[in-house]
């Protein structure tokens, strides 16, 4: 009886600039290396970090490899952006230390502490988030890590990677580049040459990390590339849950963020890695915003190991990232849960790779894409079953939700099976917020904008359920803020 109307166009323009409430700039003195990229800059970064020679050499090898790529970025993703001039950026920016490096929080620039407070990440002893140890990274430099002592008692190493390179060289040397080699791809190679800081975590055998670990990344400086490197190792039977949050000020020029994350799970170990990515998405005309070109990969090296990626991507002008799992150990499990939202002129090309090598390996992919405004969202995924992967299993589900009539949702799944015992399932849907659903909620008294939001939130429910509780609430809020004024 109900006539299908033209799908309602709900792209009321909103002032995104004022909606992005994380867009403030912190006035601090910054120590820059000269603009541009060459061997001297790589050596300078390494020297600033007081790195051992093997690390400097590794960086230089990466840099020399990068030169052979002739500034040719990967072209296969469905994203477009103006040519980046890699010589016109700063590769090292750090909050200028007042005297020596801070030894305790009292010595950290109060402006930085205030900035993190404003972001809801208090670093002071008495205000720390309960049950979450935070490594605060400001312009690619770790400024403070909370709960160090409690973690130390449990035997967990959680510190800036620059510190780990100095204090735990054997661990770093053994694993860095073992999952994402410096030759992996253009951005990962660049990162390997110039990474400034990031997080290192090692959980010893049999230890269940007593609290959630979190890194909060904050970009502040202008015209600065951001290159963090994260390395997490869960030794035999260990468990760790790690979360990262990201925000940046509103800048008119775009900023490059090319991070690398490597995870290693040994026998019976489990790593749960969650991301709330809320980098500045650019203004409503598509000016500015972060180019988030990130390589994240985990290796289930040991038998019965498990790596689980959960990401909620609402920020960045461009997102290019594929958190992946190499399922090498027998019976290992890889999971990928993702919500990626694009609004205004945002572009996201994101998904995962599940590489099944070991026997009885299992992977699950749940990807939810939401496209609004003129946003373009692409799911790109690969499930590869190698010849030795007897009885591999994969379940993939990709759902796209469209809001308005100028956005796009694209799905590009690749499946390669080289073992006949594999079982794969793939489900995909594309839908709009249905007028019937909207009416039903409104007919019970719920205002239109709330009803829209409830439907969208319901669409993402399966992914949010994978996040630690507090962050699930935050993710839900983030979604609401990112869509404000777009629906209703």
């Amino acid at each position, binding site marked *: *009886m*109900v*006539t*299908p*109307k033209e799908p309602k166009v709900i792209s009321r323009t909103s002032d995104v600039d004022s909606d992005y409430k994380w867009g403030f700039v912190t006035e601090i003195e910054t120590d820059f290396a000269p603009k541009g990229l060459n061997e001297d800059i790589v050596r300078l970064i390494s020297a600033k970090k007081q790195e051992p020679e093997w690390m400097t050499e590794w960086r230089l090898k990466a840099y020399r490899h990068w030169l052979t790529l002739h500034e040719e970025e990967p072209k296969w993703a469905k994203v477009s952006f103006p040519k980046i001039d890699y010589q016109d950026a700063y590769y090292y920016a750090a909050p200028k230390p007042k005297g020596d490096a801070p030894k305790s929080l009292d010595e950290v620039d109060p402006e930085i502490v205030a900035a993190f407070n404003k972001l809801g990440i208090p670093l002071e002893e008495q205000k720390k988030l309960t049950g979450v140890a935070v490594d605060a990274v400001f312009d690619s430099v770790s400024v403070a890590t909370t709960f160090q002592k409690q973690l130390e008692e449990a035997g967990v190493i959680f510190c800036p990677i620059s510190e780990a390179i100095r204090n735990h060289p054997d661990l770093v040397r053994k694993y860095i580049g073992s999952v994402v080699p410096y030759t992996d791809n253009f951005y990962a190679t660049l990162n390997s040459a110039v990474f400034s800081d990031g997080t290192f975590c090692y959980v010893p055998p049999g230890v269940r990390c007593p609290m959630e670990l979190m890194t909060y990344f904050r970009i502040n400086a202008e015209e600065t590339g951001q290159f963090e490197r994260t390395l997490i190792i869960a030794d035999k039977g260990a468990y760790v849950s790690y979360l990262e949050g990201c925000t940046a000020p509103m800048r008119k020029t775009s900023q490059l963020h090319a991070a690398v994350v490597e995870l290693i799970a040994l026998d019976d170990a489990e790593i749960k890695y969650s991301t709330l990515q809320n980098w500045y998405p650019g203004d409503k005309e598509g000016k500015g915003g972060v180019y988030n070109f990130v390589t994240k990969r985990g290796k289930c090296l040991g038998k019965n190991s498990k790596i689980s990626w959960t990401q909620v991507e609402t920020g960045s002008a461009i997102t290019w990232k594929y958190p992946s799992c190499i399922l090498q150990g027998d019976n290992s499990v890889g999971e990928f849960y993702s919500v990626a939202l694009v609004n205004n002129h945002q572009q996201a090309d994101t998904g995962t790779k599940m590489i099944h090598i070991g026997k009885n390996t299992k992977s699950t992919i749940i990807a939810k894409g939401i496209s609004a405004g003129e946003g373009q969202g692409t799911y790109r995924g690969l499930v590869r079953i190698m010849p030795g992967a007897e009885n591999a299993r994969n379940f993939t589900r990709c759902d796209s939700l469209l809001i308005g009539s100028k956005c796009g949702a694209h799905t590009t799944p690749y499946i390669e099976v080289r073992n006949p015992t594999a079982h794969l399932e793939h489900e995909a849907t594309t839908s709009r917020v*249905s*007028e*019937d*659903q909207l*009416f*039903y*909620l*409104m*007919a*019970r*008294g*719920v*205002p*239109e904008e*709330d*009803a829209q939001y*409830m*439907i969208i*939130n*319901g*669409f*993402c*429910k*399966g992914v949010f359920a994978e996040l630690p509780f507090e962050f699930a609430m935050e993710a839900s809020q983030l979604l609401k803020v990112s869509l404000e004024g777009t629906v209703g």
Partner: protein
Amino acid sequence: MAKRSKNGTKPALLEVRNLHVSVDENEILKGLDLTVNESEVHAIMGPNGSGKSTLANIIAGRPGYRVTAGEVLFEGQNVLAMTPDQRARAGIFLALQYPIELPGIRNREFLRTAVDAIRESRGEDKIAIREFNKLLEAKAKTLGFDADMLKRNVNEGFSGGEKKRNEVLQLAVLEPKLAVMDETDSGLDIDALKVVSEGVNAFRRDDRAIVLVTHYQRILNYIEPDFVHVLIGGRIVRSGGRELALELESRGYDWLRDATVGAK
């Protein structure tokens, strides 16, 4: 607040005057009049395609219909100028013929959001979770719901009968002034029909009213109407009491159809 008419009498709860409604280019309702006062139960009967569901949907504000003439007043206010959520908050409830599935939204959460939206519009505080749970569980029990159904996503994977019971649960929890039940009895077996009817009867009160849209007089054995109207060809062609429904049961609609044609 309800406006009072000039002579000080309270306006009817629902007043439909000369209502003409089209879907695409087809006129479905062709000058329908209906007055419903507090405490009354009106049954709207008629053959398929006579416009019964159109009437129910237009009262609730469902999109897809075009009003070309006439008006619908609720407590004297022009309903047609209100959005569906405003109507619901004013006290109009529609039990849908085909309830909609809401993936990822739990029944409990759905109902609490609705209760809060209605309370908020009245300037009341949000309902305390404990108080809400108590209310919900009590109402659910009388309708034979198990706790599991409250946890499930709204209507997702529900059987036809469960969906209808869920509509009546919403009615019981939201406590509107006017309940429009669109074929709530269709597809129910006799036991489910009894449970649903009991739910609707429990809702009956002197300050509330019910418009019951139905094909069959069967449900009227359980919910006794004050008035029965026969809707044919977009108009009410006959109104009467309970006995009219019984007459329809034995004689069908054709004699009335012929009568309308003859009257023209």
